[in-house]
């Protein structure tokens, strides 16, 4: 088992390096130059060339990527000329709030989706199942900002329960945690889409497990339905969801950009959005790479979690 995990880790490392290289190369090829970011769009060719030379951007791409990776390993993410700050500091400043937003949204999504999916599978083709299926299907087909706008219309403008924008007073992670009213709509918006995907998947996964012979055997043992579900169905049906959680990270990160933009909540998403408008390439590059690496790590953790939860894989 340790051997398997070590091999998975090595593979993840290779993929993480690949992610960095691909993102770096893509930005380089499409002309996303830090020189433009540093000197402005009106700088002439010669100044840009000179700047590139002093900052090492005239080296072969492979060398640039290698040096970028070696900097990343030392947590050096480059320098934002637009903001006059190191990218690391910018990311560090915003990471906590984004982690809080995404984390709560993910947990909320799981807490809703798992029981909902199982309930739908158990009561399949009942009116409740149809209603839930319709609801999740609609959510699944909805851009997150539209869900946010609907929530704002209903809960902020019509009912005045929650604020339409996160207050400017919420600047630290701690303030975000201690102001649940401010964060409710962003969290629900972000969780809503995740719930849609998860519960659809959970329903079909639970249906698969319900059709298994060991569920029939559990009933043949005389187990009450409640125990059939908790002891036999739950664990087996949740196994595929673990992988899905790992795979949902890119979606969550993208959702952050939208949600933070919509509710003006200061986090990495808003930072990315601002950097897009300023063409602040070092930040864009760093956050895209980090997003990719986070995804790789998320998938790795999910893989390991599945190995722990599913005894069948342990031998491998």
């Amino acid at each position, binding site marked *: 088992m340790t051997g398997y995990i070590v091999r998975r880790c090595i*593979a993840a490392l*290779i*993929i*993480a390096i*690949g*992610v960095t290289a*691909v*993102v770096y190369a*893509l*930005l380089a090829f*499409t*002309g*996303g130059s830090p020189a433009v970011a540093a000197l402005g769009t009106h700088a002439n060719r010669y100044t840009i060339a000179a700047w590139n030379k002093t900052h090492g951007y005239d080296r072969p791409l492979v060398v640039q990527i290698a040096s970028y990776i070696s900097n990343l390993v030392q947590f050096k993410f480059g320098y934002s000329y637009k903001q006059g700050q190191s990218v690391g500091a910018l990311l560090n400043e915003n990471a906590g709030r984004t982690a809080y937003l995404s984390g709560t949204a993910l947990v909320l999504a799981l807490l809703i989706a798992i029981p909902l999916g199982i309930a739908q599978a158990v009561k399949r083709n009942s009116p409740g199942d149809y209603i839930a299926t319709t609801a999740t*299907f*609609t959510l*699944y*087909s*909805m*851009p997150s*900002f*539209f869900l946010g*706008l*609907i929530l*704002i*219309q209903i809960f902020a*403008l019509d009912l005045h329960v929650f604020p*339409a924008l996160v207050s400017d007073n919420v600047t630290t992670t701690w303030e975000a945690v201690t102001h649940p009213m401010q964060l409710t709509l962003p969290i629900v918006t972000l969780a809503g889409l995740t719930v849609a995907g998860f519960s659809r998947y959970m329903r079909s996964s639970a249906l698969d497990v319900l059709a298994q012979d060991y569920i029939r055997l559990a009933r043949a043992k005389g187990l009450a339905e409640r125990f059939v579900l908790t002891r036999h169905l739950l664990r087996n049906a949740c196994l595929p969801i673990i992988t899905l959680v790992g795979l949902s990270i*890119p*979606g969550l*990160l*993208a959702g952050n*950009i*939208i949600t933070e*933009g*919509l509710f003006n909540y200061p986090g990495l998403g808003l930072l*990315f*959005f601002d950097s*897009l*408008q300023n*063409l602040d390439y070092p930040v*864009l590059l760093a*956050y*895209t790479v980090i*997003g*990719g*690496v986070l*995804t*790789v790590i998320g*998938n790795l953790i999910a893989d390991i979690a599945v190995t722990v939860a599913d005894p069948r894989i342990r031998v491998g």
Partner: protein
Amino acid sequence: MLAEIGAQQMVEGIPPLGSPNIPTTAPEGGDVQILASGWRLALREFFSNRLAIVGLGVLVFFVVFSFAGPLFYHTNQSLTNPLTGDLAPSWGHVVGTDDNGFDELGRMMAGGQTALEIGFFAAFMATVIGTLYGALSGLAGGIVDAVLMRFVDILLSIPLLFIVLVLATRYSATVVSQSLIIGLFSWQIPARLVRGEVLTLRERDFVAATRIMGGTQTRLIIRHLIPNALSVVIVNITFLIADSILLIAYLGFLGFGLSYPIASWGDMLGNAQNAVTSGYWWLVFPVGGCLVLVVMACNLVGDALRDAFDVRLRRR
């Protein structure tokens, strides 16, 4: 003489193998029941799914609405007129006007055109690339397959929205360029699906049979692998269209949509937040509703197609 066994030969004492009471005109193996052909069976299953018909109906409606609508509902979509801006729905402007004074309904039609065009074009590109890539990987097998698939893993780890956003800042935003960007970065899922399909099909007995007859690799691919993998690809196209339409909506919402004067639903929602807070609901919910409906219709049709193809392959 030998052929008579099982048909007519009488042996004293016991009834013959085929009894005189049973009409012996039928061949020994029995008659074939007349069933519908495979594709017809799939079609029948598809159309027996009420949701699928609804989905298909919605799609047809939006194609007509977007492409034929402007022929009957003439509106000015090129000259801004702030004097008639932000008008509430009335007989003159069924869904009101936006802040530039454009008729909202006419703009929805124009936006629908771009959404459908980009959706179809991007999905088509992604499907072509993905199918070729996946088939190549699955057929090659071994190290080539492993390397190609790790590259897919790398691309799947990079959050799609990030890359598309960064690229959108660099290139002039036209229908073609946005379709290209989306298509070039969303072929990984079809590639994986096709590869998986090729790998399972390769192990099937009918493929072995062809090989044993002396069939060439080309025949195997053209006569057996492609027709059998086709259903997976077709089903996936509908989901790709849905995803692409959502993605351009996100781009538009974030302000990186199509350049003026091309209208798109996402761009129309770019100012939605202000519109909502200003009470201009008609600028948000009708167009958002269209977006959700089209995406939902694509997903419904995809789900129904998948079920229909399953039926087609299922034994009676």
